[in-house]
């Protein structure tokens, strides 16, 4: 065996920079190994290993960002670029997969499905999401995106005994395949046109963000390139759940098991935004004459559609899905503003993190209130929650309050930062739409809170008494910490506030 090649690899040490993704993948594989070697009755320990392992990894990552030795590194010839931002997204996705695993323990306990594979796929998908945000090459991005999507196909249709889940799985499969093909077509167009030797600045490396950006800079009004740009945006818009590509959201969110819904709502959306932000900054800016009007239209329509559609929902999974659509609209506001206002990027990050914390609080409560039939989660099931289980109802109130953007919760600060940067970017009419959206959203978030707190069981004898899962100690501690973090981030941003000046 030729050892010099290995020697060369070791000297370059590019794989070492990907240690979080690699260790997450290894951990995922370890779960499968454990499933084979452990006796069946002790399989419960596997999910604990998954959670514990991710917890350790999260600690290492947070330590990494605190030690502040991160500089911008390009590896694999520019396929992947690691920055402070991508490190932040690593923490984001790892936190998401950790919390999804914790929620999955609650939900899967009510199902008869095999359990280990769920944690396995969640972790693999999380690693792929990290790579997606880190990629600065369209091919790399596409491969990472496909890994995410294929993993999610499995996760969405995980409870394959339920008809609604199967429906959701099929819908997600068709929509996902469509969006991937749109994205791929866009990539091909961009690659083809940037390699056209008759154009100025043509490049053989048209997949690479920097080279492509430079080419688009020199050809700012090329028709084929504009079609490519629109198609790429459309492909990502499916992931973010942005109008007019949000139509799959309610059905898929309802049918998917609750932890998968949480993963879709938070991590998948954030992955789309992370990829879009990178693309926007490096590639799409020369086409802002086209991209900004398109995104502005999408943002306004998304906010209005998400909020109006959520108004009439009685199934909480559909409701939170559609409210997630409106949140994507608010985030898009920040993305558009980031074309001119540097602070807007920080605002988007802050918004994403506050959205992560708040959403998982809500999904955590949903997982406990849900029965064996996971798709059937109505607002009426929450009636009397505050009496039966004050802890869950308090968590729910903080989560929903933060999603609604009520001070002093983190969600308010996120909205405030986004609005501030949108105003600085002179997007006045979109801001009015956003304000309208906030007012509408208050209505349905409050009707949820109303169900949990205000409506008493005695008034509605038709509702049978519902058994709610007891909250175990570990979950209780973790989610109290997350609720407190939501509360404290609203009051005190500390060093997180410095993101806003990046």
């Amino acid at each position, binding site marked *: 065996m030729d050892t010099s090649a290995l020697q060369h690899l070791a000297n370059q040490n590019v794989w070492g920079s990907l240690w979080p993704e690699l260790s997450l993948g290894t951990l995922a594989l370890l779960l499968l190994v454990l499933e084979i070697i452990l006796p069946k009755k002790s399989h419960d320990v596997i999910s604990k290993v998954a959670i514990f392992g991710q917890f350790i990894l999260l600690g290492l990552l947070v330590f990494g960002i605190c030690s502040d030795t991160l500089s911008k590194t390009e590896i694999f010839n520019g396929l992947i670029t690691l920055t402070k931002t991508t490190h932040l997204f690593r923490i984001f996705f790892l936190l998401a997969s950790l919390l999804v695993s914790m929620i999955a323990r609650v939900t899967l306990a009510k199902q008869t499905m095999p359990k280990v594979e769920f944690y396995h796929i969640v972790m693999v998908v999380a690693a792929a999401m990290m790579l997606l945000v880190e990629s600065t090459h369209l091919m790399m991005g596409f491969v990472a995106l496909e890994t995410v999507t294929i993993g999610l196909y499995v996760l969405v249709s995980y409870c394959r005994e339920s008809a609604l889940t199967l429906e959701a799985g099929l819908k997600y499969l068709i929509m996902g395949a469509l969006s991937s093909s749109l994205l791929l077509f866009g990539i091909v167009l961009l690659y083809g046109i940037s390699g056209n030797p008759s154009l100025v600045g043509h490049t053989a490396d048209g997949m690479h963000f920097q080279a492509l950006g430079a080419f688009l800079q020199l050809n700012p009004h090329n028709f084929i390139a504009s079609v490519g740009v629109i198609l790429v945006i459309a492909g990502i818009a499916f992931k973010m759940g942005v109008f007019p590509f949000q139509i799959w959201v309610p059905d898929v969110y309802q049918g998917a098991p609750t932890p998968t819904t949480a993963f879709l709502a938070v991590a998948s959306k954030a992955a789309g935004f992370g990829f879009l932000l990178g693309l926007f900054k490096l590639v799409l800016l020369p086409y802002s004459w086209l991209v900004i009007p398109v995104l502005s239209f999408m943002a306004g329509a998304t906010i209005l559609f998400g909020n109006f559609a959520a108004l009439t929902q009685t199934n909480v999974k559909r409701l939170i899905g559609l409210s997630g659509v409106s949140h994507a609209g608010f985030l898009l506001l920040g993305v558009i503003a980031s074309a001119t206002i540097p602070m807007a990027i920080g605002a988007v990050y802050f918004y994403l993190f506050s959205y992560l914390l708040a959403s998982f609080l809500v999904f955590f409560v949903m997982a406990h209130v849900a029965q064996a039939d996971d798709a059937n989660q109505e607002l009426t099931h929450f009636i009397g929650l505050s009496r039966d289980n004050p802890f869950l109802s308090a968590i729910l109130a903080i989560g929903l309050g933060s999603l609604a953007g009520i*001070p002093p919760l983190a969600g*308010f600060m996120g909205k405030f930062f986004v609005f501030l940067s949108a105003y600085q970017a002179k997007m006045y009419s979109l801001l009015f739409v956003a304000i309208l959206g906030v*007012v509408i959203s208050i209505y349905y978030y409050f009707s949820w809170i109303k169900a949990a707190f205000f409506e008493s069981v005695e008034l509605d004898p038709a509702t049978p008494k519902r058994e709610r899962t007891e909250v175990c100690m570990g979950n209780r501690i973790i989610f109290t910490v997350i609720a407190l973090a939501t509360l404290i981030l609203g009051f005190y941003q500390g060093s997180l506030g410095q993101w806003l*000046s990046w």
Partner: protein
Amino acid sequence: MFLTLDPFLPAIAVPLVIALLIGLGLPKRWSVRLSYVGFLAPLLSALHVWWYYSSVPQNAGFAFYHTYSTGLDSLGIGLKFGVNGISMPLYVLAALVGFSAGLYAIRSGAERLKWYLMLLLVMQAGLMGIFASIDVFYIYFFHELALIPTFIMIGVWGGRDRNYAAMKMTIYLTVGAMLSLFGLIAIYVKSGVHSFDLITLKATLAQYPLEVIKQEHFVGILLLGLGILVSLWPLHTWAPLGYGAAPSSASMLHAGVLKKFGLYMLIQVVLPLLPNGLAHWSHLLALLALFGNVIVIGLVTIAQRDLKQMVGYSSVMHMGYAFLGIAANSALGTGGVVMLMVAHGLSVALLFLLTTSIHQRTETFSFNDMGGLARKAPVLAALFMAATFASIGLPGFANFWGELSIFVALWHYSAWMTSVAILGVIISAIYGLRSAAYVFFGEPSSTFALVDSKRPASDITWSERIPALILLVALLFVGFYPASLTTAINASLPASTVTQVGTHP
């Protein structure tokens, strides 16, 4: 040494920490005990601030200046505390009304008392924060902090129509708050200083005022937003409904203190920062306030047959005077508004408190089912008469000075408006005295006689009397010794009212 300590942070933090402890599962007995501390701490802080206000050094017009960083310095946002002559009286008002509402709530024995007190404590912290902050962002922030518990309290502990009232109030007030936030962001960005610090903003905008057309736009948005929050006609419809449904301590705090946020913003922030913009809108504002709030709502108030609705409407009506004082656009008018805010806050809180006490005895708010309560409860009757006189604005009560200064200021602005506005005093005398007559005098109605025979009405108890007396004594104290507040108010007005920009020099 003693005076260099920050009096504001404890007034905000103590209620919040106690609320958090209750939320984390403190037993009921301890929750109640600690709540006393939570309401007492702001009161002590406020008395301290009031007593030493003139004897501490000032920083750009603000006494007890203290700052804390929350990590947003790069955006020009930070916790900056301090009071000037405009915020100091209101800070004291918030503490007084909060203390008496808190005492009343603790002794009220409401259902799920622990959670009720928790929300009330959060509200109290927010109220103290509004008037202690110099940073405009935090003024808004604390307002929202105090506003949210109101919705929940109405929804859970409210009277009839509580669900509808809570929903309507939530939506109206959220619209108002969001529009105000939009206006504030506009000032922040367009002033070019990228800071929410009121002192910096004042200094910059005094030197480089915004273009008049921008000022007009911004004040238009702010007036719409704040108008909803202060119940300017025709944006007032949430108020009587909400107060009618709210539990007594919540309506005391909301009508008494929280609603003053909009007026406070107009005087403390809009007037010094966008004087030309406000002058542009002042005529429309005066007309709406005069014919809408004072006359139309005044007549509507007379027509009420429900005591709590009547108090709710009367509070909407009195906001008209406050708007007139602002529209008059002079130091005298503005000072009058501050005085009226304090007086009205105390008197309307007192009225809501007594209304609930009456309800406990008659089990109804309807005038038709009352009568003759004075024989059973003479002290309650006396207190209610005093509160009514205060609300009408009789000399001896703080309200008199507020209304008088506003009328004098308005005379300089427009004599005919003053003549119409004075009609409002007659209107409030009519509904005030009529309501007292319906409730306390005459023969008991058959319904009340029935209720009384089942459960004989007793006079007002000490747990109701003490909170009521705190408010009444404060009203009389300011009424007989207005200099206790006006010295501070006067000193701050020239600094914040930019030289006459109105129609009259």
